[in-house]
């Protein structure tokens, strides 16, 4: 009989393991943030980067797993707040449109839409907070 019982500590360890392997769900941002981000994306970004986030050949780059989307938060915030015209290259392709600045969006709106982008189109990266945006906005105001 005893041989067929699984020790309690093994059961607990397995449960913990299963819980931990669900981690991607745990770091998924709250639904409210994703919903607000999606609305802002539809208005401000979708026309160029498209509904599937895969961009337009030769004009607007994809937002799926690029080094700017998955990379340092400050860099991504800077691109979206201040815009970008120096040509970037992805897999040998360049993009002829400019990335316009989005200084008309407030800190909350920027953090919502960037968190949404970082967790859509196959991306999974840490959320961005309004405080993160505030810091970068202040740096831009100082001419950076």
């Amino acid at each position, binding site marked *: 009989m005893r041989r067929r019982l699984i020790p309690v500590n093994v059961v607990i360890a397995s449960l913990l393991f299963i819980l931990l392997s669900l981690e991607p769900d745990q770091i998924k941002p709250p639904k409210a943030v994703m919903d607000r981000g999606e609305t802002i994306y539809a208005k401000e970004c*979708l026309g160029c980067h498209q509904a*599937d986030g*895969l961009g337009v050949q030769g*004009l*607007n780059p994809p937002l*799926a797993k690029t080094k700017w989307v998955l990379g340092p938060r400050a860099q991504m915030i800077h691109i979206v707040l201040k815009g970008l015209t120096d040509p970037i290259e992805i897999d040998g392709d360049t993009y002829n*449109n*400019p990335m316009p600045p989005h200084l008309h969006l407030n800190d909350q709106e920027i953090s919502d839409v960037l968190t949404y982008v970082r967790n859509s189109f196959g991306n999974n990266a840490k959320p961005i907070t309004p405080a993160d945006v505030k810091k970068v906005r202040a740096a831009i105001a100082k001419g950076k």
Partner: protein
Amino acid sequence: MKSFSSIVTVVVLATTHFLCACAGELPDQPAGDTTTTHSSPGDNAGLTLPSGFSATVVAENLGGVRHIVVDSNGDIYAKLSKLKDGKGILELKGGDAGRISSFGNYPGTGIAIKNGYLYASSNTSIFRYKLDAGNQVIDPDKPETIVKDLTDRGQHNSKSITLDNAGNIYVNIGAPSNSCQVQDRAVGSKGQDPCPLLDYAGGIWQFKTDKLNQTINDGVHYATGIRNTVGLDWNSSVNELYVMQHGRDDLHRMFEQYYTVKDNAELPAEEFLLVKKGSDFGWPYCYFDPKQDKKMLAPEYGGDGKIQGRCGEIEKPLVAFPAHLAPNALLFYTGDQFPEKYKNGAFIAFHGSWNRAPEPQAGYFVAFVPMKDGKPGGNWEIFADGFAGGDDKKASGRVDYRPCGLAQGPDGALYVSDDRKGNIWKITYKK
């Protein structure tokens, strides 16, 4: 610079490859690709055409084929948007994809043949190559530079070309801008009035074909107020220049108080224009609303979708095509192979839209406008469709092919090129 940027390309390619789930969406060029030809009779190579017409694919996967031209031997010259093995022009001897040679160390769009010369453009310059009696380029490594130093800031940088019969070449210099705002495409940024870009872009310039090293100041500022043109052609039946204007983008994103998402998808028209010396078509101040059949004042300049203002005097297009379809080639048909209605009529290759999103994308076809005495002689129609590869692909914009160039063969066949994968189709007619 060139070799530096190609090193960068290689490095970036190598380092970003693993990051990019988008690779499948970009033109998939097999490494060291072999170009194959297939013609499967009966299926028109996936295209739908009017009855009596049929199509074959004469070449596949050539790269980003922008404009094409066919000489009197049936040799096809194709201009590439991106260098392939360091070259930007392909020649398909006798139209045969098995006999390709390449030359020209610059990418670009424009290509044309006139009076014993092959003309080709980079995004800043126009070159020409003397042809021998057999239509062969005599010295592919030493073209003459006809025009140089034209504006290239990425956006709208194609220098499309056409020639008249009096020794002139016409080139589009697209405005590197959507609507000449202080900060391009930024919500809330004002329109500049007057728009300083119009001094050196946003129009058509005329140059001499036989004068070397001309700059913009040597050219005639032939027409203005044209945001961007990729398709233009000289209509020899009436000796006039015609162009296809790409209309502005983003009315909803920038002015949601005046334009809905649907308005954005349907405004403004892509315009078929007869361009005379001195013409002004109103960009950036005006755009054409096909529903109201009026040139309207752009919202960056005080418009609200209803005010016409100073745009009342601006000439209307000959034909208003649906918004954002991106007409990238225009060709007046002078051949004898097609039925009479096509004679001197206009074929237009639509590259297809992106700024209609989230509404379904559209375009990706070749249209035809019957012409009479240089004016449209009937309604436009879709001539060749099916490049997208299905309705779902068309709606999402994730299409198989994007029509970009047109050419007429010596036998009167029509050629269509695609700059996504680099296919070329040949369309013929039999009674």
